[in-house]
């Protein structure tokens, strides 16, 4: 009895790229849901009881039951609503393994290297994080070639798939990186397939509906940087 007419609620924070992933998956499947913006400085009781382990967004609540972790949420949406829209993961076990591999790569190499860019204090540390992230992005270029069958459309082939959703959630932040740090992460001269992918992705109706405004993300990240610098200065 998967899916059905159960109520879907998404607890999120507008700037979070992980929340964006969940929204993308819901929109791709055409699933109506209630969105609740959480104040992460003052977490609601519902939020804390739904994700006591990590206390992070996104949290998807389906028929009152919480699902946490963006990649788990996206897979859940795919599993729980099988008849709806195109499946995000392919049917073939080997192709699924390849998609999961690149999803894990994005988490372990792109996101993990990149996150410090917004938190580290010295330019040196920031440059090193940028360098590692760029290296990971170059590997992804090869992955896109492999996954899209050389056509470079989407990681999912002709249509948007699991890896596209996980990377797609990061797009506004990928674009924000240049104004924030001076480094262009997706550069058409270095990673042409990914640059074309990003353009193609942003043209999708779901992307237009869901992706955050890049200027707003830049402003948010700058304010965050100022807040972090102030708190660490206060702690010295």
């Amino acid at each position, binding site marked *: 009895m998967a899916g059905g007419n159960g109520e879907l609620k998404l607890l999120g924070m507008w700037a979070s790229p992980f929340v964006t992933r969940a929204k993308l998956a819901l929109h791709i499947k055409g699933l109506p849901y209630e969105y609740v913006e959480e104040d992460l400085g003052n977490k609601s009781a519902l939020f804390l009881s739904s994700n006591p382990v990590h206390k992070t967004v996104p949290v998807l609540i*389906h028929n009152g039951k919480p699902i946490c972790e963006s990649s*788990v949420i996206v*897979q*859940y949406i795919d599993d*729980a609503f099988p008849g709806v829209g195109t499946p995000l993961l392919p049917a073939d*076990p080997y192709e699924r*393994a390849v998609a*999961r*591999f690149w999803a894990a790569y994005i988490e372990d190499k792109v996101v993990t290297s990149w996150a410090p860019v917004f938190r580290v204090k010295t330019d040196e540390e920031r440059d090193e994080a940028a360098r590692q992230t760029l290296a990971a992005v170059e590997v992804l270029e090869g992955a896109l070639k492999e996954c899209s069958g050389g056509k470079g459309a989407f990681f999912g082939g002709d249509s948007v798939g699991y890896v596209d959703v996980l990377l797609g959630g990061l797009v506004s932040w990928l674009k924000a990186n240049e104004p924030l740090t001076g480094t262009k992460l997706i550069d058409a001269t270095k990673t042409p397939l990914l640059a074309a992918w990003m353009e193609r992705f942003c043209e999708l109706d779901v992307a237009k509906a869901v992706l955050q405004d890049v200027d707003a993300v830049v402003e948010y990240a700058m304010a965050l940087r100022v807040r972090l610098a102030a708190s660490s200065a206060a702690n010295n």
Partner: protein
Amino acid sequence: MAGEKKGLQLLDFWVSPFGQRCRIALDEKALPYEYLEQDLGNKSELLLRSNPVHKKIPVLLHDGRPVCESLIIVQYIDEAFSSSSGKPPLLPSDPYARAQARFWADYVDKKVYDCGTRLWKTKGEPQQQARKEMVEILKTLEGALGDKPYFGGDEFGFVDVAFVPFTAWFLTYERYGEISVDKECPRLAAWAKRCGERESVNKNLSPPEKVYEFIGTLKKKFGIE
């Protein structure tokens, strides 16, 4: 692709808990495979060719095609051999239960190995911090287990496979971290014992003393005393 070997091969390293997850899954499904011990100090051409991105074990080769990352390998084994093995699936069929299983396997991946490593690699304040964290991690996992015989419920499943190899490391955590799993998490200790009675687990986990010895060797190698 000409010349690739038919069947299943596992590129692995004897003490790796990640490799052991794969061995356990293969045995649970009664799948014959060739075990190929890798020299991680001098990586083979086969390993480098099969996992060019990470150059790590474990790697499962199925008719020559590589699958990398232990939990991805376990899911692949579960999905590719679901009908032929006649054994129960490791991941439940209910989408919500699957999501819970994935969440907890991800939790094990994010937390256990990293904290465990800090327990034996550090001293003083960082080690004390790691000790506190490890107890919290184990208690959280014990909470997730609840009163069930396995994380999967009545059946040994995905999360059990993901976590059980680390039970061979409890002795090492206990000695370096001065933690008693029996005392802090008795239900988890009971679960570990229960899993240990399964042939797939018993056969594939390293003896705890061997793990401890191995870490001792590593510490010397890295000049950590």
